[in-house]
């Protein structure tokens, strides 16, 4: 009898120990009160919206280009963290999370450890505001930010945390916040690029700015299903003004066959099909002006 009892107790212990490790999201609190009501019927399929959101470029790429063309670092380009406390709706927080996420990418690329901590704190506050703070290990991030050797890990954790937030919001019926965050990232990246372009003439940067026509098109698709909500409707109005200036940009393509070479012991595929952006100085100046106007309006409280 005693043996049987012990046997069943041990069996219970074995079974209860054989659990798969749940991701840290499994117990996350999903009860979030948002300032937005979700649209009852999305006109674009959620799968299509997911695909578009997934495809949007990382802010690291624009920041890397800005650095590669020799632009010195400047805090003047970045949004101030002084007014984070005033963002008190989920839409403001999600959008601002995107803005500061883009700025964090810029700081990471320039390895500016000192300012990174300020932006991490702002991001922490905003992320907690929309209940995605658990994606950031801020203790670890702060440690890495204050360590010269930790900058690469900091970059990785920053980028992957934002990627995870985006996935989480979409998977948990909060895609409108994901769309706002992505839009914040994009507008801030465009602003950074246009600020640099207004001070330095560089064909690579100008071409990259002109290509944002494609990203903008996708952003409008992502946001449009939520246009019944006032904050997003207001955002769309602003972005439509940006779209008007980008409509004049012409992008053409030349066909070519890719080549495969070996470089530094690794296979590299050289694409010979090319995109060509036709952007006049006048068009560029309009984009610069409109981007500054819209971005400053959107981050103002």
């Amino acid at each position, binding site marked *: 009898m005693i043996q049987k009892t*012990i046997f069943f*107790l041990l069996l219970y212990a074995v079974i*209860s120990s054989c659990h*798969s490790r749940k991701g840290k999201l499994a117990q996350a609190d999903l009860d979030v009160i948002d300032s937005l009501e979700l649209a009852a019927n999305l006109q674009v399929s959620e799968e299509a919206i997911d695909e578009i959101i997934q495809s949007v470029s990382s802010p690291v790429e624009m920041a890397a280009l800005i650095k590669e063309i020799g632009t010195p670092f400047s805090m003047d380009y970045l949004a101030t963290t002084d007014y984070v406390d005033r963002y008190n709706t989920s839409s403001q927080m999600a959008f601002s999370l995107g803005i500061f996420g883009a700025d964090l990418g810029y700081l990471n690329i320039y390895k500016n450890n000192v300012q990174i901590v300020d932006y991490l704190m702002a991001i922490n506050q905003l992320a907690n505001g929309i209940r995605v703070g658990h994606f950031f290990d801020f203790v670890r991030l702060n440690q890495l930010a204050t360590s010269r050797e930790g900058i690469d890990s900091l*970059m990785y954790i920053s980028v992957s945390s934002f990627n995870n937030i985006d996935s989480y919001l979409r998977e948990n019926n909060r895609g409108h916040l994901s769309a706002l965050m992505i839009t914040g990232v994009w507008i801030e990246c465009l602003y950074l690029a246009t600020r640099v372009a207004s001070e330095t003439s560089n064909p690579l940067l100008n*071409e990259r700015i002109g290509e944002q026509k494609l990203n903008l098109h996708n952003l409008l698709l992502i946001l449009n299903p939520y246009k019944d909500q006032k904050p997003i409707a207001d955002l769309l109005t602003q972005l439509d003004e940006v779209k008007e200036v980008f409509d004049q940009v012409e992008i053409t393509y030349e066909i070519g066959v890719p080549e495969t070479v070996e470089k530094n012991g690794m296979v590299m595929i*050289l694409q010979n099909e090319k995109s060509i952006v036709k952007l006049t100085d006048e068009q560029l100046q309009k984009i610069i002006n409109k981007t500054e106007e819209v971005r400053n309006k959107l981050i103002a409280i």
Partner: protein
Amino acid sequence: MIRILVLIIFGFLFVFTGRFLQAQSPTDLVEQCANEASENATYLKDFVVKLAEAKPGSKHPIARYPLILSKNNVYRFSVCTTEQSEGKAVIRLYDSNHLIFSSYDEDTQEEFNPFNFLCRKTGIYHVFISFIDGKPGEAVGILSYVTK
């Protein structure tokens, strides 16, 4: 009595080691795979994949991810398969419906993982991840930006 003691000892071993001997999940693999790909490259995105075995007579399961790639950037594509995966992962890059490159050459059975891609046309591309011979598996694909 001895049998009881043996049972108790084995029971404790199962209880405590069970908590440490976790199968490697794809999520665990992301950071490791990103670090492996990071020589002169900065992590951009990851693609976590879990696919079942292909049914007889059916196409091999594929996970597909869209991307926007920008002109003049060099991107690195790499894939890491989990230790317990039966199948070995393959990552392919497509432009519209055209295959640009695959990390596995089916004819020669050569692997090219990771591979770099010099993009000259900004636009939408697709990453496909599948497993050789349609076997089941778990893997992580990594997209990195190669710094100049």
